[in-house]
């Protein structure tokens, strides 16, 4: 039998699986209209497709599907210990989407979610209501409610399809006690450029050496284009955060990351940057183990890590070496109080 595999993959989002309840939301309808050739499959509950057992994340990444759903509860989560929070007490994140259009080798989403398909929750009014309530009930009333809205995804990269960033920036403009962070590797800043800059929104770009981008950050824009997007956002008056995170101990990492910092602040005025974060590669052990079972093609996963408090990361000595190196280089550009390091 001739069974040679030479068929082509379906394009991403060839199928839209839509919860019946989601059809009622204008946000869902606007997404559906952006995929006129997609097959629309009505479903009862997003979990019946997203949470199927034994899905293969990397195979599904070759042809991701979009699932539109209505989130029923848990519109805010307390911030993670794996994240920097700049001493902001009222630290939360939310999940407007599950998964990301990019496919970085080191990404914890591969181990966190059972599927590579993208879930977009369309009931934004419910998220806003929960956020308003959390602002009113926040523990430290002297600080804003700090919500990271693009943690388990890259919202800006998907903004042309699901305009969450626009909706949340407009929401933040009405909420004096709210501070949101939108973290991205995308250069799609143009999608929100017409909005008036506000200090209630931090646009945070993750930066990596070009060699790391080429090898480990599949599908993401090149460093130079990210820096151009950063520069444009700064010129437009936005508060910008730069995230050197994760730092990978690749061969010659000192030269690679030293050059990255030089290139970044050769292009961007450090005084115009709100703050900077640094963190080495780290991942919850259960996520790491799950990824290792599924993929055997990247040295990021097959590496000499240590287990520390349920987290897979470099040895304490190596972490210390990396963070000391990065901190020292960054301090020559930016005041120490504006550098947050995960150790």
């Amino acid at each position, binding site marked *: *039998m*001739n*069974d*040679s*595999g*030479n*068929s*082509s*993959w*379906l394009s991403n989002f*060839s*199928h839209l*699986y839509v919860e019946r309840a989601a059809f009622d939301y204008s946000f869902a309808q606007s997404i559906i209209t952006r995929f006129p050739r997609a*097959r629309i*499959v009505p*479903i*009862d509950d997003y979990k*019946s*497709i997203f949470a*199927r*057992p*034994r*899905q*293969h994340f*990397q*195979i*599904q990444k*070759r*042809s991701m*599907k979009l699932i539109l759903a209505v989130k029923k509860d848990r519109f805010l989560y307390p911030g993670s210990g794996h994240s920097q929070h700049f001493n902001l007490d009222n630290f939360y994140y939310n999940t407007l989407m599950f998964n990301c259009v990019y496919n970085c080798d080191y990404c914890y989403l591969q181990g966190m979610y059972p599927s590579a398909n993208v879930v977009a929750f369309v009931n934004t009014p419910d998220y806003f209501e929960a956020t308003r309530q959390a602002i009113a009930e926040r523990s430290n009333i002297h600080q804003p409610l700090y919500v990271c809205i693009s943690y388990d995804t890259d919202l800006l990269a998907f903004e042309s399809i699901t305009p969450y960033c626009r909706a949340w920036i407009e929401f933040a403009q009405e909420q004096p006690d709210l501070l949101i962070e939108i973290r991205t590797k995308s250069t799609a800043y143009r999608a929100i450029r017409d909005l008036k800059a506000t200090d209630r929104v931090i646009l945070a770009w993750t930066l990596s050496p070009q060699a790391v981008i080429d090898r480990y950050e599949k599908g993401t824009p090149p460093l130079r284009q990210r820096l151009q997007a950063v520069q444009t956002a700064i010129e437009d008056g936005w508060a910008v955060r730069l995230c050197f995170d994760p730092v990978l101990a690749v061969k010659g990492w000192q030269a690679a990351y030293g050059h990255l910092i030089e290139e970044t602040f050769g292009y961007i005025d450090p005084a115009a940057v709100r703050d900077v974060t640094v963190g080495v590669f780290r991942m919850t052990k259960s996520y790491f183990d799950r990824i290792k079972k599924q*993929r*055997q*093609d*990247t*040295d990021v996963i*097959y*590496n*000499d890590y240590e287990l520390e408090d349920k987290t897979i990361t470099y040895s304490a000595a190596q972490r210390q070496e990396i963070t000391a190196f990065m901190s020292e280089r960054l301090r020559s550009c930016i005041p120490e109080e504006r550098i947050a390091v995960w150790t």
Partner: protein
Amino acid sequence: MHFLITVALHPEARPLIAHFGLKQDTTAHAVPIFHRDNVSLAVSGVGRLKSAIATTYLLSRVSAPDKIGLLNIGIAGHTQIPNTGPVEIGDLFLVHKIAEQATGHTFYPDMLVQVHLPESVLTTVDRPLDQSDGMEVEAGLVDMEAAGFYQAAAAFLAPHQIHCIKVVSDFLEVQRFDKAMVSHLIEQRLTDIDRIIAAQNTVAEASSDILNEADRSMMNHLNRCLRLTVSQHKMLTDTVRTYKLHTGKALPDLSAFTQTVVTTRQEGKDRIERLGQLLMVK
């Protein structure tokens, strides 16, 4: 890649048996199995429970579950009123959603590769459905096996390995099927079935492991000669992958480690330690 096929009826099986040159497996007693090279086919009988049993039986007879593609092939009714729409007797559909009428549960095979064939929802019912009974199912195909097949398959395999292919045989007018007609419907669609099998190969080949066949063969040799425990085998496999991923080189010659079988635990430990040193990434 091993392709497993379940069908409900012998008339559905006949053209597939001829097409793939299958012979009856006389060691299979619970369910009729036909087999040749990398294709096996089971004839389940009618109904979702029988389909689940046959699927499980078929799967239990093969190893390496990640190298399997599993297909449920057969005839199905369609909810369209006859002569009122685009669907015709003999049309083939790839199923993207299986609804189990009895439980309300739904199942979704992964649709990943372009096969240029129409898709449909399929509802599995427990009794033959007639247009005159009223339409209580989602518009699309209706059969009596797919939900049982899928649930059994999904207990072993990933959703990208499982597919359901149906050829329209009727528009839900309860009747006795002509066996020759059933065989003819499947026979007409063998080219499409081949295309779906090729697509499954594309998906199977996408799973990339840095270890190639020669590496795996060496690992098997090492496993036997060093009498590795499960844990030691896993650790050594990790070490080998780490070596290849970080150095970008092929494995060094390890044949010295497979000349003789270790006789003591200490001898095994010593050889594993030497192997670890040889494969250490600097």
